[in-house]
């Protein structure tokens, strides 16, 4: 049954509809008249203007590429520069016969099949009358040859453009990253208008993270061209705006000292300025020359980097994840003190084994002589001599919940938020984490492994440095940062509202213990104390690269070098008024005290000597 059909009046509805339709028909005709008026205006009234514009050769709008922002270290030393480079470009519209032009060019300078293949690909993506690159980085001789033969190479020209150059080569490659040509995948995600006239984009590191700042704004020029397409007159020009200049917290000198200290070792070091959270030095060894990537790396070079056993392309400082080992002990000690789980006077007897009720297999101290650290091991001694047995018991008493809660506050188990892309988060294990990632409940055995920084636990060298800085600053929570200023304008510090809650006396106690790691006669890092004019506080660590049975003692002579233990070290200095904090790892370096600590000392020494104020570079 139709709704209201009984009362509806079909005839009246039809008339109403017809009237409505008439109204729309009239409006349609009116709007069509408006369109006709517009086309009449363009095609008849203003025909002359447009015909001239279209016939008298063309008025072109060409992009003017901005120059990329520069990057400076804290002392205004340039670490990413732009240098002129000459490319061979072609405007196919200007050449009568493109194939002949390419053949002619091949007689003047060397042009490979691959160059031509890539050129044809680029041709498809360009705008009409836009210069398209054929060869990059022309040499002095090539430019001369092209100039001499210019008359028979109509349509080809050399054009100068600025190219990224990294004066220090491999020194900053992992931090600063590099720019490279925009690839097909990127060209689909970028805003095409912004990149008109620019053919490179930040690929990794700061170059990628600050791409929007560094890029600058493209300008344009309106030019008139003659029949051959040569520019005869510039009608109008909107200048390009160069990208923002970045000033980093990094100190080239420290970077250099650290880099040299690694020699041919593999590993990473991060040094943080405690007051600001600024990164003073960030090294991942071995490194590579970023300049190779700027105008396209050869397959051979790329393969040799990619397949090298040392993995030079891998940024160990923010992406490498290692068990923190004993470097975690000061943190866990602080938690136990704060929560009254042990007092400083609490002592244990260490005979080299730790038994846990219900578990037959004991936990041992792999890196210490059989028999253990003996009687009267208190927390200070356990830190100074790095006694595992003490921390096994302390860990179980504290419980994983407190350990993991504080661990997170000290920067472990989540990204630190540094201004770099693709940072790893590490793992600070907890009940929830294990349930989520393994689907299993937490066992006491897991806590025991965690209490010496082994087991599931993983941290990046950056996280170790952040933890060290937070211990040194007595619980101040600052987000680490590389960029100090953009165009001379200082960037705000990212500081948490409240500090980590630990009593002063516990900080005092732990700082003293860490100082004794370096300065007391039984400290595990005593070897670096020779000739120190100031005090360093630190903690060594050793992390297993492979697992070892409880019954076996670790013996490096029995295993391949790449399976040797990793050596770790965290430190801050000066111990009584900390300014710099360090976290570092030497892969397969075996002992924190002998392999890692000397590198830290070299960097801290350089810092203590140079400590000059920073300068900010404006535009």
């Amino acid at each position, binding site marked *: 049954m*139709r*709704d*209201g*059909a009984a*009362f*509806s009046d079909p005839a009246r*509805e*039809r008339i*109403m*509809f*017809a009237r*409505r*339709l008439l109204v*729309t*028909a009239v409006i*349609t*005709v009116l*709007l*069509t008249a*408006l*369109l*006709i008026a*517009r*086309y*009449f205006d*363009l*095609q*008849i009234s*203003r*025909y002359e*203007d*447009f*015909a001239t*514009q*279209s*016939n008298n050769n*063309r008025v072109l*709008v060409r*992009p003017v590429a901005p120059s990329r922002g520069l990057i400076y270290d804290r002392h205004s030393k340039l670490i990413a520069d732009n240098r002129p480079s000459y490319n061979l470009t072609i405007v196919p*519209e200007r050449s009568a016969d493109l194939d002949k032009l390419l053949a002619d060019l091949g007689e003047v300078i060397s042009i490979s099949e691959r160059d031509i293949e890539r050129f044809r690909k680029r041709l498809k993506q360009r*705008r*009409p009358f836009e210069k398209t690159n054929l060869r990059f980085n022309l040499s002095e001789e090539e430019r001369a040859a092209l100039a001499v033969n210019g008359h028979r190479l109509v349509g080809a020209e050399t054009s100068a453009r600025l190219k990224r150059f990294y004066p220090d080569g491999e020194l900053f490659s992992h931090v600063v990253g590099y720019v490279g040509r925009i690839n097909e995948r990127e060209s*689909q995600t970028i805003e095409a*208008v912004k990149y*008109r006239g620019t053919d490179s984009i930040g690929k990794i590191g700061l170059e990628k993270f600050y791409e929007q700042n560094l890029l600058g704004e*493209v300008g*344009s020029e*309106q030019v008139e061209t003659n029949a051959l397409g040569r520019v005869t007159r510039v009608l109008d020009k*909107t200048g390009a705006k160069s990208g923002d200049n970045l000033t980093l917290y990094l100190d080239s000198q420290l970077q250099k000292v650290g880099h040299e200290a690694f020699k041919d070792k593999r590993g990473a070091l991060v040094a943080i300025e405690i007051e600001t959270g600024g990164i003073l030095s960030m090294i991942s060894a071995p490194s590579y020359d970023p300049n190779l990537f700027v105008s396209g790396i050869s397959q051979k070079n790329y393969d040799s980097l990619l397949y090298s056993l040392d993995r030079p392309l891998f940024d160990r400082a923010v992406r490498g994840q290692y068990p923190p080992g004993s470097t975690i002990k000061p943190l866990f000690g602080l938690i136990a003190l704060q929560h009254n789980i042990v007092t400083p006077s609490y002592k244990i007897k260490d005979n080299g084994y730790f038994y846990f009720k219900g578990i037959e297999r004991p936990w041992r101290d792999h890196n210490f002589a059989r028999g253990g650290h003996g009687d009267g091991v208190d927390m200070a001694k356990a830190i100074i001599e790095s006694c595992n047995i003490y921390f096994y018991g302390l860990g179980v008493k504290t419980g994983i919940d407190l350990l993991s809660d504080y661990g997170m506050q000290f920067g472990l188990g989540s990204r630190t938020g540094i201004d770099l892309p693709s940072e790893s988060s590490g793992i600070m294990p907890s009940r929830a984490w294990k349930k989520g990632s393994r689907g299993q409940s937490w066992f006491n055995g897991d806590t025991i492994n965690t209490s010496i920084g082994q087991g599931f636990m993983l941290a990046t060298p950056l996280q170790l440095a952040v933890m060290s800085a937070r211990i040194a600053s007595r619980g101040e929570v600052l987000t680490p940062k590389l960029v100090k200023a953009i165009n001379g304008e200082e960037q705000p510090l990212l500081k948490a509202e409240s500090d980590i809650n630990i009593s002063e006396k516990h900080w005092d106690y732990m700082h003293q213990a860490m100082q004794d790691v370096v300065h007391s006669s039984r400290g595990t890092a005593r070897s670096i104390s020779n000739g120190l004019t100031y005090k360093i506080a630190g903690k060594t660590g050793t992390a297993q690269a492979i697992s070892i049975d409880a019954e076996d003692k670790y013996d490096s002579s029995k295993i391949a070098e790449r399976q040797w233990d990793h050596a770790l070290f965290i430190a801050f200095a000066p111990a009584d008024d900390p300014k710099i904090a360090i976290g570092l790892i030497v892969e397969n370096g075996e002992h924190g005290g002998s392999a890692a600590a000397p590198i830290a000392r070299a960097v801290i020494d350089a810092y203590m000597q140079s400590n000059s104020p920073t300068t900010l570079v404006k535009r």
Partner: protein
Amino acid sequence: MYRNDFVRQLNSPGGDRRPSRIMHIDIPLLLILMALCSIGLAVLYSASAESIFYVKRQATFMLIGLFAMIGIAQFQPRLWERWSIFIYVCGLLSLVAVLFFGVGAKGAQRWLDLGVTRFQPSELMKIAVPMTLASYLGKRHLPPRFKHVSIAVIATLIPVLLVARQPDLGTSLIIFSSGFFALFLAGLGKRYLLSTVLLAMAAVPTMWFYVMYDYQKQRVLTLLSPEQDKLGAGWNIMQSTTAIGSGGLSGKGWTQGTQSQLNFLPESHTDFIIAVLAEEFGLIGVLGMLALYLLLIGRCMIIALNAQSMFGRIMAGTISLTFFVYIFVNMGMVSGILPVVGAPLPFISYGGTAIVTLFLGFGILMAISTEPKRI
């Protein structure tokens, strides 16, 4: 229950026995459509730099569309009236699915990947919304009462907002206007019309600040001063107006347009194809094509007037008016009096899905036009 209609018609002594009636084909409509398609293919050949590939593909879609149109025309309008709500709900569900599983490019999610083929639900809604509204309002006592107006408005706004979220502002405006036309033709009261105008005026600032994306705002700003954006959309408009203007009265001749042939004109085979036509065939060409479009719309309006049911009238009227919106928006945008939204020129611009959707709409019109008289 309508399965026997075809047979019944053949046998009915008083029925129209012309072959076109039996085949449910409206001859004037078919002729105009074929003329438009031929012009479309000719212009496309020139606009695509004389590419047979594009022309072949486009012709294939036109043939598919033609057959789909004739197929659709075989179903009685009453069937569409009855099933419209089902099609509408399906369309709505797939629009929601697009929000979650949609695929697309450059930040817009418009497609559902069905494995074999891709499907764009917003295209379906261009027909489903007017059909549902025509079906719903056609059954009511007209002009519609407040309750019916409210339901129709809600049924229109839900897909409009979903499509705007994708984001596809052009299509969402088309759906919105089709809903409005259906209500208008159903006799929407003057007070409602006035408040719609006021609401639209109030909506402009809201859209600007809360709904529109930066790139969409940029296009409106570009319209006001194309010189500000020489490397982006402004460039397109400067080039297209030059192409149109330099065509003059009679044009430069087929495939002779310098602006389009030398690749100055962007998107010359899709949204900006009218510029190629205007450059090569001049104002005469533009007027000729507009005349064909007006003939088509006029024929559709006559079909609407003569339709047997209120559903048929509203549906046919809405389709013809929406068709005009396409033409007006596209020709206005290319000639620089409207902002650049992605809107193809019907039957001329290259693009398969859009063509098939258009033919489907005209298929329903043919069904309405050839519906046997009710006694």
